[in-house]
């Protein structure tokens, strides 16, 4: 497809800027010439061409509304349309962030109540909705841990991170000046308790744990893990990427977690937008509330207001109050499904993952064969050994069958990993059809491996050259001379 620049033609435009109803002024007396730009080289396209360009681009994109999207760890559940509609109400979208609080009582009430709901669901003392995404929430949480020890005059250098963790975990720790130490998994896919005991000293600030972990397995020894960390004065950090696995079943706060971040765009049904915007609320236990980012919302009688009078706060993590419009969608989701709907979502998500696991078990290696939570992790090792077909090939072949591939090559401890997260919003028929496709691909790998290795055959482009892209990077288009 042509680039927008390639269809540009001088003299066209898609939007007529309204005429000015105030007297025009000469620019140069107002702004010195040295501050003015010489040229402005933006595309010039007619409205119809603009619409066709982006509409045709959209047809080269796959979303949840087009088909099954079992991308592990990403919780690609259906994005309810009512959420989109109410979030588009002018009362929410047209409000400037610096309006006096009396103009924004609806927004403030929504934020306040959302914090309360999240406290109830996760068993934490307080939440902030300021972080813009999960990783931003992680950074916020680790900064609070840093501040907590600073205020106690304790210098702790290390953060423990299991070998199954998301890459954001070690990066977040390192960005707060901590050294990260890798904690091994045991043969069941859980925390290696002995290894934890040997690593956990008074020099360790926190253990960052994802529970259930990225193998989709619930940490059976969670009580013991929390105790080992707390006995040395450390804190237990929860990566809430997998929160869809336990809503209404258990609460991180009750399990001993001191900090947890969430992803509203995973667990609470807000759309992922092709990579964002997300929202990454952080919940904390009572001993950490003083360190929450400012501003925080305060309620006096029936009136809400922002306050930054929290001297121990880590400070501010971004401008204004967070991705408010994303919060509106997640709030709408919680209100519409209620406590029972959240619990049912978890039950169905776990049921679906286990169903897929059982159906595919005869065809693909399952490194950890036990009841899983919201996702299951296979290995493509058998296919590699039998026919040289790799997990990438299986993933690409699934595209030809009309599916978005699962997450692949993650977690790192599973070779040729295939991580499937079906979510609760998929029907049995969809799951059955997906399993049949996976089984058919397993057969193709044996009988006609080339067909799998050459996939996808149905897309406008196939197997892009990533090495070339990295070796000779072209990240901005330039006019040919």
């Amino acid at each position, binding site marked *: 497809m042509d680039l927008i620049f390639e269809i540009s033609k001088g003299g066209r435009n898609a939007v007529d800027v309204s005429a000015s109803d105030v007297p025009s002024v000469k620019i140069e007396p107002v702004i010195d010439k040295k501050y003015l730009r010489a040229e402005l080289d933006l595309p010039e396209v007619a409205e119809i061409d603009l619409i066709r360009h*982006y509409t045709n681009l959209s047809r*080269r994109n*796959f979303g949840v509304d087009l088909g099954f999207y079992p991308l592990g760890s990403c919780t690609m559940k259906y994005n309810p349309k009512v959420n989109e509609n109410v979030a588009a109400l002018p009362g929410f979208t047209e409000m400037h962030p610096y309006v006096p609080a009396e103009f924004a009582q609806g927004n403030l009430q929504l934020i306040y109540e959302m914090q309360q709901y999240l406290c*109830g669901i996760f068993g934490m003392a307080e939440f902030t909705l300021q972080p813009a995404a999960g990783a931003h929430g992680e950074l916020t949480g680790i*900064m609070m841990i840093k501040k907590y020890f600073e205020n106690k005059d304790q210098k702790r250098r290390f953060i423990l991170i299991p070998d199954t963790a998301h*890459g954001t975990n070690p990066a977040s720790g390192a960005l707060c000046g901590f050294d990260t130490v890798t904690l091994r998994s045991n043969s069941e896919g859980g925390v290696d308790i002995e290894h934890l005991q040997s690593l956990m000293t008074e020099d360790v600030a926190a253990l960052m744990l994802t529970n259930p972990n990225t193998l989709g397995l619930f940490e059976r020894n969670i009580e013991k893990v929390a105790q080992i960390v707390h006995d040395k004065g450390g804190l237990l950090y929860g990566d809430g990427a997998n929160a869809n696995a336990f809503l209404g079943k258990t609460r991180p706060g009750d399990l001993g977690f001191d900090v947890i971040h969430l992803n509203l765009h995973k667990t609470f049904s807000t759309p992922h937008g092709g990579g964002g915007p997300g929202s990454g609320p952080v919940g904390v236990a009572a001993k950490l509330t003083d360190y929450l980012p400012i501003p925080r919302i305060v309620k006096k009688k029936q009136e809400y207001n922002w306050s930054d009078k929290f001297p121990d706060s880590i400070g501010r993590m971004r401008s204004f109050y967070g991705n408010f419009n994303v919060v509106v969608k997640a709030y709408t989701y919680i209100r519409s499904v209620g406590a029972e709907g959240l619990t049912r979502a978890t039950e169905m998500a776990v049921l679906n993952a286990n169903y897929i696991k059982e159906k595919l078990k005869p065809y693909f290696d399952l490194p950890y064969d036990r009841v899983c939570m919201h996702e299951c992790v296979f290995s493509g090792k058998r296919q590699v050994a039998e026919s040289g077909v790799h997990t990438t090939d299986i993933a690409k072949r699934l595209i030809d069958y009309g599916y978005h591939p699962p997450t692949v090559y993650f977690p790192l401890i599973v070779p040729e990993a295939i991580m499937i997260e079906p979510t609760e919003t998929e029907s049995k028929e969809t799951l059955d059809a997906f399993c049949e496709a996976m089984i058919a691909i397993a057969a193709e790998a044996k009988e006609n491996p080339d067909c799998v290795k050459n996939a996808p055959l149905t897309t406008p482009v196939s197997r892009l050259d990533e090495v070339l892209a990295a070796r000779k990077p072209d990240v901005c288009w330039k006019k040919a001379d």
Partner: protein
Amino acid sequence: MDYCPHTTQDIIQMQAVIGVTSLDDLFADIPQKFRLKQIPNIPAALSEQQTVAVLSDLARKNKLPQLTLTGAGAYHHFIPAVVGHIISRAEFYTAYTPYQAEISQGILQAIYEYQTMIAHLTGTEIANASMYDGASAMAEAAVLCAKMSNRTKIIVAGSVHPEYRQVVRTYSWANGYTIAEIPYTASGQLDQAALQNELDNQVAAVLVQSPNFFGVIEDVASIVDVAHKKGALLIAGFTDGTALGILQPAGAVGADFVVGEGQSFGNPLNYGGPYLGIFAAREKFMRRIPGRLVGATVDKNGKRGFVLTLQTREQHIRREKATSNICSNEALCALAAGVYLAALGKNLRKLAEINIYKTQYLKNKLLQLKGWREVFTAPIYNEFVLRCPNPRLTNEKLKNEGIIGGYELQKYYPELENTLLFCATEMISKEDIDRVATILKSRV
């Protein structure tokens, strides 16, 4: 209501395949003592109709102002209809990050085009796929400069948005860096003599914003020289992105990084978010910058296509050695920005001129009020600071008429007592401005 399609029969059949007799069996790994009976504090489920009613009530509890004369980091601009139509396409908004390039060419190409437009607008060679917002983009640029140079001091102009300075402070504290703030002069621009004094061989970066928080255009070209002479990098922000339609971009006068808030490009005010952080840089920093980058390449048949590239910079590959932990960005907001810029094209300059006309008209009207005068002397874009007899009373009068007045600078600048920061965009009509003047002339 819920969004789970299974019938009772489905559930029974699926349990049989799994080999369990109840859903509870699937949660056996959760120790009994930690099992939750019921989530507390959540109101009962609602039908779709009830949901709409409840949320509409909340939206109505807000009082939508008739007119907003505050910008201060968030700007009310007209959003062409095409923007909403494109970003509402489910192929875009219900997609995840484009890791599977073959079925993500749509968003990948759109972001590549966005990167190109942003690099051009900012006068740099490259731009990433977006950061969270303007403030965090600036903070991440500062951290990156310190990490690249092994220096530990960051200099920030006091005329940078106060919330941005707070965010830079938070990120710097976490990384163990120190901050020095440079005052502004009577012109409203950064005090270059003070900058000279503060610069030493420990300074990693100098952070300025142009237009700055006061609406004043900084002399970025000479600040770049001052910073570079001491081996510090220059990070230049901006306030309202539409200024880039007419002002010389910082990248064109040698800034190393241009970062800022992209909300003005097709994204609604949304009470502060989601917005998008613009992050642009010199080409030589391409392998170090944070965030996602889309690159052009070819497929196995030689056809042009797009992929996420240079991912070895990023946390999911580099883990604790990454310079940033950013993962999700603001892709849909960046898409909106791309569509907006493509729709306006060269008209962005005309739009910027109209912003200047409106701003001059508002400023002149307000200066006719008794006791009102200008505070700074340097040129401005669409914001300006005025001193007035009683800012609180001024805003009160306007508020009673449903108008949001100026931003009271004293909150962050105690020395700027009795001053207000005003903004006028193309959304404000002559009639609005005349009405504001009339209201302020009247006695209470």
